[in-house]
């Protein structure tokens, strides 16, 4: 498809052949790929047109095919912006002359289209041949692809309306591609040797640097920006929504105070649901004692929690008067513990 994937393929093949040496230690395991097997994988069309099938197609035929198979998504003139970005547009006669789309240089390009971006016509050919139409990829014959591409080139005003594109003149078209000089390889994504040593990339130097500081370092990291207060709770407590293991944790969006309040609020819900609030008030006696009274009586007693848990479960009578508390077998044990802890902590 692109130079890039070809290079990866070459690397992969190199890796495969080197592993073949490794297999010498394991006689009878694995074998070299046969030429036919490699050929079955080697389906791309390179910018130097290696791998390009023979064939030809003219603009008129391309228009028919495009209208029939492509226009429903791409628009009759490749202008549609509804399913994907437009195919055609944004290029000028000047760009065709310079080989660089002026909109990118000046930065005033309103929108990218396929023909403003693509540097190599082979890429478009290869893509259409392999991936289009979306509903029936690989259904186009090489001649169909040449025709459709001729139609594109005519729409983009690169070739005249009576043009016939073929494997023999595609190189001449490449020399007119509006963004043919727009591709850079001077970055770490390109494998192999640097350009000055005959490779295509920068020798694998990464685009970013993260050097560990060894001296005169900042004493601490300063937080440059934070979520504004009003926005912090927009998605609830993020810390509770992330996994508790692994490198990524959600921040405590509600803050420790608010998180506690939220937890308490849910305990209050639990108390209401469990039927406690029918007889006990937060700060007043109803039938049974208020939680504030309970706290006052049991404060400072280390075994209070265990005794109260037992009392809540089994019910009781006499401590606070003659009205009995019924047993609460319907409340789960862990909920009882939660509730008792909550009451003893002031039920706030």
């Amino acid at each position, binding site marked *: 498809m692109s130079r890039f994937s070809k290079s990866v393929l070459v690397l992969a093949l190199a890796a495969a052949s080197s592993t073949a040496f490794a297999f010498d230690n394991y006689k009878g395991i694995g074998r070299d790929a046969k030429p036919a097997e490699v050929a079955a994988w080697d389906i791309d069309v390179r910018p130097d047109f290696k791998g390009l099938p023979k064939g030809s197609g003219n603009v008129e035929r391309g*228009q028919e095919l495009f*209208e029939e198979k492509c226009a429903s998504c791409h*628009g*009759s*003139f490749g*202008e549609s912006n509804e399913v994907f970005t437009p195919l055609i*547009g944004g290029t000028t006669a000047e760009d065709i002359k310079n080989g660089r789309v002026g909109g990118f240089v000046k930065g005033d390009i*309103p929108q990218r289209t396929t023909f403003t971006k693509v540097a190599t016509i082979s890429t478009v050919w290869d893509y259409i041949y392999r991936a289009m139409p979306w509903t029936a990829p690989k259904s186009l014959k090489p001649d169909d692809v040449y025709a459709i591409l001729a139609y594109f080139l005519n*729409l983009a005003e690169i070739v005249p309306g009576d043009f016939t594109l073929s494997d023999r003149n595609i190189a001449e078209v490449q020399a007119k591609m509006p963004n043919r000089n727009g591709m850079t390889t001077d970055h770490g994504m390109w494998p192999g040797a640097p350009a000055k040593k005959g490779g295509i990339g920068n020798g694998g130097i990464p685009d970013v640097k993260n050097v560990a500081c060894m001296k005169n370092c900042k004493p601490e990291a300063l937080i440059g920006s934070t979520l504004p207060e009003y926005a912090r709770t927009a998605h609830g407590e993020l810390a509770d929504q992330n996994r508790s293991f692994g490198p990524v944790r959600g921040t405590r969006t509600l803050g420790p105070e608010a998180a506690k309040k939220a937890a308490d609020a849910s305990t209050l819900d639990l108390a209401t649901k469990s039927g406690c609030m029918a007889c006990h008030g937060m700060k007043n006696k109803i039938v049974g004692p208020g939680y504030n009274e309970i706290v006052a009586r049991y404060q400072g007693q280390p075994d209070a929690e265990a005794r109260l848990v037992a009392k809540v479960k089994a019910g009781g009578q006499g401590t606070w008067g003659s009205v009995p508390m019924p047993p609460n077998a319907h409340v789960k044990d862990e909920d009882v513990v939660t509730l008792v802890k909550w009451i003893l902590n002031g039920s706030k």
Partner: protein
Amino acid sequence: MGNPMKIRAANKDGVTEVKVLVSHEMETGQRKDAAGAIVPAWFITELVAKHGDKTVLSCEFGPSVSKNPYLAFKFKGGAKGEKVTVSWKDNKGDSRTDEATIG
């Protein structure tokens, strides 16, 4: 003179569908350039489509229409080989006419 329009016209079951891609800057007159000066308004004001001598579409355009407008419409009648012509005028007095053969 403007740049040529791209026009497709196709007849199917007695109805002709016409698609037009007009090439025009369509400046609203509201934009400012890098220097802060207002880019003068420059837009199509009228567009007429004819089938032979008969007007099948007539519209008034304004600054709210996009750059390089795309237009699609259908009319009853038309036959293969007949001509559809589309012409526009803009606020600078420029105009252009292009024609296509119904296919």
